[in-house]
């Protein structure tokens, strides 16, 4: 049950953040979508041992969070949830790749540790970038951009409908679980033996709801075709933002800023 309410809270808090009015929120969603994807590609294009080259890329999420007024805590707590898979997949690296790569302050560091750290950095960066995108851009705006880049309308409509009914169905499921537990206080969780009836009920309710939604669409003249407004145009500022940010990423990809800064001091 807590998992259900927690996920509702998560969606709602991200939605609230996306309602903000900061400069970052005002940037055209297309510009943000493109820069985010570009950021992801550039970050994961680094080779598996890169660490110092990746660090300057933290500038992007940090500045965006600051300008976009996104609380650090909310992004960080979500990061922890997303980390384990990469963490465990990367954990093997120090075991298999034990050859020493360098000696840092007298401690030998193996290639495996470097590549493990690199995986963690990449995970943190990519997860942050996506969370920042969704925390500064509402789902409906993103959906409009999907249509713009020619993702089929039926598919986009489907994403929007799933998103729309998500919280509603989670609430319904959570009510059902509460009702179940109130009448079976001794056992923990729902028995697998009850999975059929439990999920089946939820399924039938969902079918009923879908039927009503369809009728509601029909009543408002729906005839199988989905129409969307043409989305807002990108202004000069949006182009400039996209160009500036992408160029910065390319520069950071080409020039290892950490090493240059470091060489001044060492």
């Amino acid at each position: 049950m807590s998992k259900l309410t927690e996920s509702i809270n998560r969606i709602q808090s991200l939605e609230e953040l996306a309602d903000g009015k900061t400069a970052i929120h005002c940037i055209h969603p297309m510009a943000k979508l493109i820069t985010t994807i570009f950021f992801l590609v550039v970050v994961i294009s680094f080779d598996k041992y890169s660490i110092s080259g990746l660090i300057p890329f933290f500038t992007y999420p940090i500045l965006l969070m600051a300008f976009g007024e996104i609380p650090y805590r909310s992004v960080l707590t979500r990061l922890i949830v997303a980390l384990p898979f990469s963490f465990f997949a990367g954990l093997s690296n120090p075991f298999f790749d034990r050859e020493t790569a360098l000696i840092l302050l007298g401690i030998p560091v193996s290639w495996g540790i470097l590549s493990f750290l690199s995986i963690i950095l990449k995970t943190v960066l990519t997860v942050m970038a996506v969370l920042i995108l969704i925390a500064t851009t509402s789902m409906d705006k993103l959906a409009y951009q999907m249509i713009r880049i020619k993702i089929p309308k039926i598919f986009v409509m489907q994403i929007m409908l799933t998103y729309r009914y998500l919280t509603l169905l989670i609430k319904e499921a959570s009510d059902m679980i509460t009702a179940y537990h109130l009448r079976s206080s001794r056992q923990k969780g729902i028995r697998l033996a009850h999975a059929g009836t439990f999920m089946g009920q939820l399924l039938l309710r969902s079918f009923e709801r879908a039927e009503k939604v369809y009728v509601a669409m029909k009543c408002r003249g729906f005839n199988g075709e989905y129409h969307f407004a043409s989305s807002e145009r990108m202004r000069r500022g949006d182009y400039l933002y996209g160009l500036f940010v992408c160029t910065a990423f390319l520069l950071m990809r080409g020039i290892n800023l950490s090493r240059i800064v470091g060489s001044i001091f060492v």
Partner: protein
Amino acid sequence: MHMADALITPAVGGVMMAVSAGAIGYSVKKVKEELDDKKVPLMGVMGAFVFAGQMINFTIPATGSSGHIGGGLLLAALLGPYAAFLVISAVLVIQALFFADGGLLALGCNIFNLGFFACFIAYPFIYKQIINKSFTPKRITIGAIIAVIAGLQLGAFSVVLQTLISGITELPFASFALLMQPIHLAIGLIEGIATAAVLCFVLKSSPTLLDGNVTVEGESTNMRKKTVTILLIAALIIGGFVSWFASGYPDGLEWSMERVAGTAELEAEGSTYHAAAGIQENTAFLPDYGFKDGGESSALAGTSVSGMIGGGITLSVACLAGFIITRFRKKVKCNECQS
């Protein structure tokens, strides 16, 4: 088993994205051809259903194990494979955006691993063959369980391959596969049972909802049975081969055990302790291995030390800038409020 961005290369992500996009495009075309405008609202709500359903865990009393329904096969059995594939894809898009479950670039991988195999392999070649147009609880149960397990096995294997080809992790093929496949056998079993239970419930309460248009292919029942048998034998052979291959690599097993021990420790002691312990452990291995070449490695170390220090400074400057901006904006806001 959601793939993360950090574990793949842009090439792997791009190729899988293209494959999945192609499958989505084809499915959209197929769904449109059905000319059933009821389907899209139904698909939308079903996406939300799967989303909620995957958060409800069912427990097996006295074993401590639990699992939830799988999405792909259940949807394929209710909506047909094309609509089901679109629903799963949409769910994965939302999971990637809001829950950081699987990355945005890895979306293609995830759609392929979790959607494609369930909808386009497990459903038509296993579930449908076993059901064979006679919807009885027994057939549905057997069909759903085998199909879900097969779909998950293929998906897990695909995760292994994608990780391997990307080469970001050092996981050897055998040990990774040996870890992934059995785990997903267990997960698949529970998922399969739950899925079968839901399908049987639907069969009892409103059988018209089951996707009944199983096309007659002029095959005899024998032929179908043969297909299933062949598939099962193939699965066994592959499974056997993988485990034999794995057993030839004691390193892999050793690693698995180390990993399992590591996980247990992590759960017991908390993450910070383990992280510290892990570093200690790892560095302790190092003396066994010699340096490649003294001069080269120290030169590399030199530049890297400057890289580390520089990285640290860059990061601090960025953080400081972020902090100042946040502070400044708060002040501006307060002033605005006062005036």
